[in-house]
């Protein structure tokens, strides 16, 4: 370990994924995660929290077995303090506090959305990008302006990942529906009519899900998947182009679970080209929620001295992206 970078343990647990990782600078020493898939319907916060409670000890054990060094070499414990589901956040915070006390290492409270951005800034060449963050629980256009990450546009109702999953469920595709919709869409041939609405740089998807569900009785699953992706991704693309044209950022970073969708990647790549900008996407295995991103963001907090005392480490279920003090970018 020649690196002088601090070693950070990252704990992710805002919704249905428990993630644990140990990193040092851009290097990933160990990374484990487990995701809860409800037997049917959406996520129930309590059930997800119970799942996380069971998973964290298992994942931590695996992580510590993999490390080439003793846990006391770790310099900081980063955890997802928010936003997310209250019960899940509380579980994660409890685990983080326990490790922090046991190892006597500082606690670092990370904003989950910003962690997705910092992941991209650490492992892709993107430095000051316009970020399209697409996941099951969030859909936002984020960029750094005036000392903070600002949300230029976002969903006014459900997130794109949630929209895909909920349509998938209605078509009896296995959960989570997103990847199955992506696959089925490749066989789609006919573009069916769906609403297209954009409000400045913001958008909403629940009306589109409702409209798509009405097509199920009379159209093939692949045509519905194809059309739904074409419309929703076109809206995301347009919002991205608007934001890019306003901010003149010069690069776009695609991040979050839905960033694994290759069709969306290709579309956003074209958007970047329209605005003469560079395109970056996070690697597939780190697109979804994970401990690595929390640890990367935690590294910045440790370096800027933003350590939180245990008694001030309560979770922040509604913590907004633009509420975070960003001391590590000038």
């Amino acid at each position, binding site marked *: 370990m020649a690196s002088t970078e601090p070693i950070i343990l990252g704990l992710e647990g805002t919704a249905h994924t428990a993630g644990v990782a140990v990193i040092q600078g851009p290097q990933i020493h160990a990374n484990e995660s487990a995701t809860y898939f409800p037997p049917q319907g959406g996520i129930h*916060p309590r059930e997800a929290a119970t799942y996380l409670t069971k998973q964290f000890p298992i994942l931590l054990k695996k992580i510590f077995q993999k490390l080439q060094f003793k846990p006391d070499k770790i310099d900081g414990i980063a955890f997802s303090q928010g*936003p997310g589901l209250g019960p899940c956040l509380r579980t994660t915070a409890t685990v983080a506090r326990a490790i922090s006390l046991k190892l006597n290492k500082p606690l670092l409270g990370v904003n989950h959305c910003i962690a997705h951005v910092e992941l991209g800034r650490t492992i892709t060449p993107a430095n000051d990008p316009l970020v399209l963050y697409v996941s*099951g629980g969030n859909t936002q256009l984020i960029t750094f302006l005036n*000392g903070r990450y*600002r949300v230029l546009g976002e969903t006014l109702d459900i997130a794109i990942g949630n929209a895909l999953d909920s349509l998938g469920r209605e078509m009896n595709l296995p959960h989570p529906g997103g990847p199955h919709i992506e696959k089925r869409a490749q066989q789609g041939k006919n*573009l069916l009519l769906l609403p*297209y609405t954009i409000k400045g740089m913001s958008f909403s998807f629940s009306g589109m899900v409702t409209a798509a569900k009405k097509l199920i009785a009379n159209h093939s699953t692949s045509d519905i998947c194809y059309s739904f992706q074409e419309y929703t991704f076109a809206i995301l693309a*347009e919002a991205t182009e608007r934001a890019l044209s*306003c901010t003149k950022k010069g690069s776009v970073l695609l991040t979050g679970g839905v960033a694994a969708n290759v069709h969306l990647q290709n579309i956003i790549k074209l958007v970047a080209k329209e605005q003469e900008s560079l395109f970056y996407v996070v690697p597939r295995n780190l697109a979804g929620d994970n401990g690595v991103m929390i640890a990367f963001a935690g590294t910045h907090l440790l370096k800027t001295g933003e350590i939180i005392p245990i008694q001030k480490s309560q979770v922040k279920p509604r913590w907004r992206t*633009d509420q975070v003090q960003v001391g590590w970018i000038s």
Partner: protein
Amino acid sequence: MKLIQAEKIAKGAEAVIFKGTFLQSPIAIKHRLPKSYRHPDIDNRIRLHRLRSEAKVMTNARKIGVSVPSLFGVDIEDHILIIESLEGKLLFEEMNSLPIDKLDPIFVNLGHQIGLLHSNDIIHGDLTVFNVLIQLEDKLSIIDFGLGKISNELEAKADDLLTFYSTLKAIQPASNILFNTFLEGYLSVYPEGKNTYEQMKKIQSRARYIAREDRLE
């Protein structure tokens, strides 16, 4: 002699703008180009729809005395609008250079203009500081009506306010003061706008609440 002489001057989010002269008056030619990233059927539908909306909404806005460039011509086939070319900088650029007390009268006037639009059931659809041109001091014009429509729906008017508020907040730390100034102007010509503002806050808190729990169901 060429009837129209034009050169490309700006690239917006959607369109390319050429400036030129037509019979000695300065014109702007707004051309909505096809986008490679969306299905051609969606693309054609949207571009046509927006061209038509923009022409209609601009015309209506001008009729009721809102400060917008005048419309000279529409070419449906080529997706082109020919409009009066205006001097001036975008409000966004002015915000980076002007002190806040110089911005005050601009925001009051903008509030007046939008109040006038809304009291006549005209929705802008993309109300941001990137779609307002500042001419002299507080004289301004509103542009880019492609997402506009005629509607008396409270929700649509509230969306205008929310779009304006959100982009303002994203780019300007003193956004609350400026937004309140805008709101004063808005309410002074459109007292019923109280309800629009209340509705805007509702949409906002709905989005926030959903951000927390319901987005994950």
